[in-house]
């Protein structure tokens, strides 16, 4: 059993597979029968096989702060996370709605600023946000799309209801693991795919390419993936996506600007680039416009971008909309721009910039999760119930010194999914990141997304940089599965 102190509605943890009465949930039944019939030794062998295959294929990531540049595998768990069809259609609609509103918000704050003048979102919080990009003022993007690729992080509380933990509108990563996990599962356990009706995800690269191609009015555009290079932690993914889409994987040094266009240097001369799927941080994109020390960018790119000579996906300046201090306003954005009721819940959030909310946070720090408004990857975060007294004191001092840099949320239970660990099959906490593609032809998702799992017992931090692993995510094609009876 898992024990977690304090929290929100947290008395119980939602188990994805088993009800509180110990019954297997309907959508897991077929899988559970298979699991019961499968000897542990086989599972063990399959897991080792998966590790070997991933290692051989070089599906690894580089750890930040590790000078040796060691590559590690992101641990892969062979027990899938299963989502019934009806639940997925709700999540899909919720993600679409959210991304649509967030794009409308970005377009608004860089143009008319209606939502600020009507005081739905405090203008100060937007305009003084470090992520508010002055260079985006007055730039009109094709179809008003800022976040072409979004990752919406979802978690489930004790009662099983879904919450959006955060939106990722800058450079959401991890989709290659979603694809590779599925391929691995199909290779290791083909029989499972015959008995469960699992919605496919393999068409993601096709959808991504369509999204990028339609992001420009140019016919038959030249699309490239821009990577910081092979020492970047997500390089595998950059190369993987470029290869899957059949487009060039370029580094800053491969591109240059001339007379208002971006060109790439090729063996048969220079070629115009129309769309850049940007996997380089915004600050490094143009050393003449932003960080002057950047060696990863393309000098002059900003001037071409502002004039519409190239499309960047995602756009610059999207970080202001996924900033944790803006996050509490997303439901208001949905009501304001779409005139709809938000489908997905936000996690209740205390803004430490507000003295009243800050004092509440400080008084209940041991029950809270505190995050930097501008942080990511699980760094710079406090999980109250797990923290030592020293850590709590450190954060108390940080909060008092710079309250506006932090928000706080109740410690959510996070649902647990059976996971294959040293001691056998045991529940571990998970989250879910669906990838949302926004194009003029609509907002599309492949069913599921990336399920991340905290492999340490009781841990709520699922980030791969912090020892998290991943699972294949199954969205069932229908809720009522045919009951497979044995002979």
């Amino acid at each position, binding site marked *: 059993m898992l024990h977690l102190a304090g929290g929100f509605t947290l008395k119980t943890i939602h188990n994805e597979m088993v009800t509180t009465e110990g019954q297997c949930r309907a959508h897991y039944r077929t899988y559970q029968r298979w699991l019961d019939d499968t000897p542990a030794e086989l599972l063990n062998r399959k897991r080792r096989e998966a590790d070997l295959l991933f*290692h*051989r*294929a*070089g599906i690894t990531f580089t750890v930040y702060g590790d000078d040796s540049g060691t590559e590690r595998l992101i641990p892969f768990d062979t027990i899938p996370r299963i989502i019934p069809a009806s639940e997925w259609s709700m999540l899909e609609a919720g993600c679409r709605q959210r991304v649509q509103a967030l794009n409308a918000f970005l377009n608004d704050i860089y143009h008319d600023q209606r939502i600020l003048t009507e005081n739905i979102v405090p203008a100060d919080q937007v305009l003084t946000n470090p992520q508010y990009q002055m260079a985006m003022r007055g730039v009109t993007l094709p179809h008003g799309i800022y976040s072409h690729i979004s990752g919406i992080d979802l978690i489930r509380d004790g009662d099983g209801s879904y919450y959006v933990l955060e939106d990722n509108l800058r450079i959401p990563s991890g989709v290659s693991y979603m694809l590779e996990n599925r391929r691995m599962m199909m290779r290791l356990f083909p029989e499972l795919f015959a008995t469960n009706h699992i919605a496919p995800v393999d068409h993601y690269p096709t959808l991504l390419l369509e999204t990028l191609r339609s992001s420009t009015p140019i016919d038959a555009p030249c699309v490239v993936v821009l990577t910081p*290079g*092979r020492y970047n932690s997500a390089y*595998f993914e950059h*190369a*993987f996506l*470029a*290869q899957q889409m059949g487009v*060039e*994987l*370029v*580094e800053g*040094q*491969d591109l*240059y600007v001339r007379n208002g266009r971006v060109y*790439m*240097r*090729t*063996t*048969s*001369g220079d070629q115009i680039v129309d769309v850049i799927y940007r996997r380089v941080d915004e600050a490094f994109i143009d050393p003449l416009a932003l960080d002057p020390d950047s060696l990863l960018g393309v000098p002059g790119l900003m001037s071409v971008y502002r004039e519409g000579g190239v499309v960047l996906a995602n756009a610059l300046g999207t970080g202001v909309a996924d900033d944790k201090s803006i996050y509490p306003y997303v439901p208001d954005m949905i009501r304001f721009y779409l005139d709809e009721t938000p489908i997905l819940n936000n996690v209740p959030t205390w803004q430490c910039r507000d003295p009243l909310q800050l004092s509440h946070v400080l008084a209940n720090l041991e029950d809270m999760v505190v995050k930097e408004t501008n942080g990511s990857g699980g760094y710079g975060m406090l999980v109250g119930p797990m923290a030592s007294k020293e850590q709590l004191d450190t954060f108390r001092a940080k909060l008092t010194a710079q309250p506006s840099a932090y928000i706080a949320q109740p410690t959510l239970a996070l649902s647990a999914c059976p996971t294959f660990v040293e001691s056998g099959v045991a529940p571990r906490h998970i989250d879910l990141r669906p990838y949302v593609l926004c194009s003029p032809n609509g907002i599309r998702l492949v069913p599921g997304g990336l399920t991340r799992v905290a492999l340490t017992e009781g841990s709520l931090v699922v980030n791969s940089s912090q020892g998290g692993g991943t699972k294949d995510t199954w969205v069932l094609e229908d809720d009522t599965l045919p009951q497979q009876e044995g002979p």
Partner: protein
Amino acid sequence: MLSRTASHLYWLARYMERADNLARLLDVSARLTLLPRSAAHEGLTAILGVSGASSAYWSTRSTLNADALLNFMIGDVTNSSSIYHCLQSARQNAHAVRGHITSETWEAINTTWLELQNWTDSGVTMRNAPEFFDWIKQRTHIYRGALYGTVLRDDGFRFMRIGTCLELADNTLRLLDTKYQMIDLAPDAPKDDATIRADYLWQTLLQALGAREAYTQIYSYILEASNVIDLLVLRDDVPRSLLACLDELVQALAELEGPNGKPAKRLAGEFYSRVRYGDLDEIFTQGPHTWLTEAIDDVATLASRVQTAYLEVA
């Protein structure tokens, strides 16, 4: 194709071949040291010479023996000519262009790199060297098999072929020149000894280049300098001969589009014709060493023209 991508593919191919060449050379040289009255020591010195690692070796060591040389040329991370370094560079280049080689080719290269750690961790000595050399030859065969069996015949493949051919041509010429000099420079040895010695040297050369069987088939068992040169320079049906390499190089260059490559293509064409329509008399009139030295320079010039035309970034 991006110039940077082409460059990675080209160097990936060169480094893989270089590792293989080095393993073959070390293999026969190590075996040679086991024979009586062998030219073992000169053979070891020659390896350092061929791979351009002499000064690096002597800067940290004072004696030369087979184990020390194996250690230096296989697993020494500080030696930029070691097999370790070649495979590391090949793997790094492959890593940078993983999207342009098939996953099978990548896995062949990556697995080689990963397994190399096991060898270098425990160390390669005369005792287990044969096993190691067999392993590396098999790994490069797998790499070539994966490459030729799965990779799309596009410009990327052509740059890999170009890299391969330049590396092989350079290696064949250098080995030939070194052995030829070793034989040539020992005229005062007793007649029989000299013949035996020359015999061993030519044998090691042919074995290193995997051309022992080819020689026997074409010229019978008697080893003669002129036949060896004929085989490794002028014949187009021996895979590592200069002519075979140039033949493939000219083809691969011709298939590349764009105006950039003219100077490289012109030189390759001239060089190819010179070898195709050249003969042994010409080589021996000029003196094999002089001829080979010029050819080595031509290969280097050709490589630098390829570099300028296609591979340079910024």
